[in-house]
């Protein structure tokens, strides 16, 4: 009997540590689930979705996804001003971003930009690349735009 009590006492601190660890893990898991529900299900919106209800996104930080419209890219390497048009084929918006373009940034590349609208200009502070699931060796430098477009659906 006394032995059992002693064993319990010896175990108590260890159990508390594990219980605290368990609560910590549950807390992290809960945080992740809430993050997922808030942002992941609609990770980004398309330009035409924004166009349908701009007031819904007023003064809100959003992610906008689309393709970099051809012949719309301008980059000033003095003040790192990058501007381009993001398009989903239906609607296009002008994007202003400060910072060097990422390595995979190019015309017709998929992008997800974080920031907010200032009138009809999207001011971005984070420029992410959403590349397609097509992997191929270079042949003639041709990029399949339809594939890229499908990857954004």
């Amino acid at each position, binding site marked *: 009997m006394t032995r*059992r009590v002693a064993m319990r006492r010896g175990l108590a601190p260890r*159990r508390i540590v*594990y*219980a605290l*660890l*368990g609560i910590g*893990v*549950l807390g*992290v*898991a809960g945080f*992740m*689930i809430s*993050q*997922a529900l808030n*942002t*992941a*299900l*609609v*990770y*980004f919106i398309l330009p035409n979705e924004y166009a349908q209800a701009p007031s819904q996104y007023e003064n809100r930080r959003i992610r906008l*996804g689309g393709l970099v419209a051809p012949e719309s890219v301008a980059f000033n390497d003095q003040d790192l001003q990058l501007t381009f048009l993001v398009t989903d084929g239906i609607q296009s918006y002008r994007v202003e971003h400060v910072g060097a373009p*990422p*390595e*995979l*940034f190019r015309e017709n*590349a998929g992008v*997800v930009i974080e920031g907010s609208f200032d009138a009809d200009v999207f001011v971005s502070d*984070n*420029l*992410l*690349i*959403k*590349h*397609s*699931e*097509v*992997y*191929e*060796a*270079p*042949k003639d*430098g041709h*990029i399949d735009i339809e*594939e890229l477009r499908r*990857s954004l659906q």
Partner: protein
Amino acid sequence: MMDASERLRRPAWLRAWGVALVPLFLAAAYLGLVWSPQDVNQGNLIRIMYAHVSVAWIGFVAVGLTALFGALFLWRGKRRDDVLAVASGEMALLFSALTIIGGMTYSRPTLNTFWTWDAKLTLTALMVALLVGYFIVRALIDDPVRRGRVSAVVAIIVAASLPFNYLAAEWFRTLHPSRAIALDGSGVTMAPEMLFTLLFNTVVAGLVYAWFMVDRARLGRIEAQLEAERAERELGSVPSGGVVRV
């Protein structure tokens, strides 16, 4: 009874398998780092993909097998299944963690971020957190039967997230690219040399997983045996009415 060193000795076939993994690993690295062509968009960065994707797939398989052995333990109650579940679970945690590390390495130069909370990445982070929980739960419970049962339920919950994770980029809008290889046969959007390199890397990753899993299960069986012997000894010395559950 075998003595301790005899018991701990790795069988010859397992040693041979371990040695064979070294050239296989080097061959996989050669295919990925040298032999594979560059990608039209990503250039040499495509080479990180072979490590990231192969490890991720085997991580999924490891989680699935952990849940499968857990379910077998729930069903038959054989200690052996619990031992296999833990052995697979440890590798599942390792491979999932490596998936995230490799993914971050790959993602920073290609997608321009280490991390973002899209559906696929969030589900993977959740998987790692739950696998950590799996081992916390195991450490909390002393009774081997209850330990096996409760942790099996955790493993099954983790495995339930696998289809969502696997198809996350198809079902939700994610930053993570979609699958290039559709298992339903609807097509592969990857150059043949790249596909071969990826599949070779996956097979080798699978053999590495299986080797560690089998070896860990071997140690787990010895562990279980020692635990049972200790319980038996204590049962012998404790007078009747002592509380020892096996």
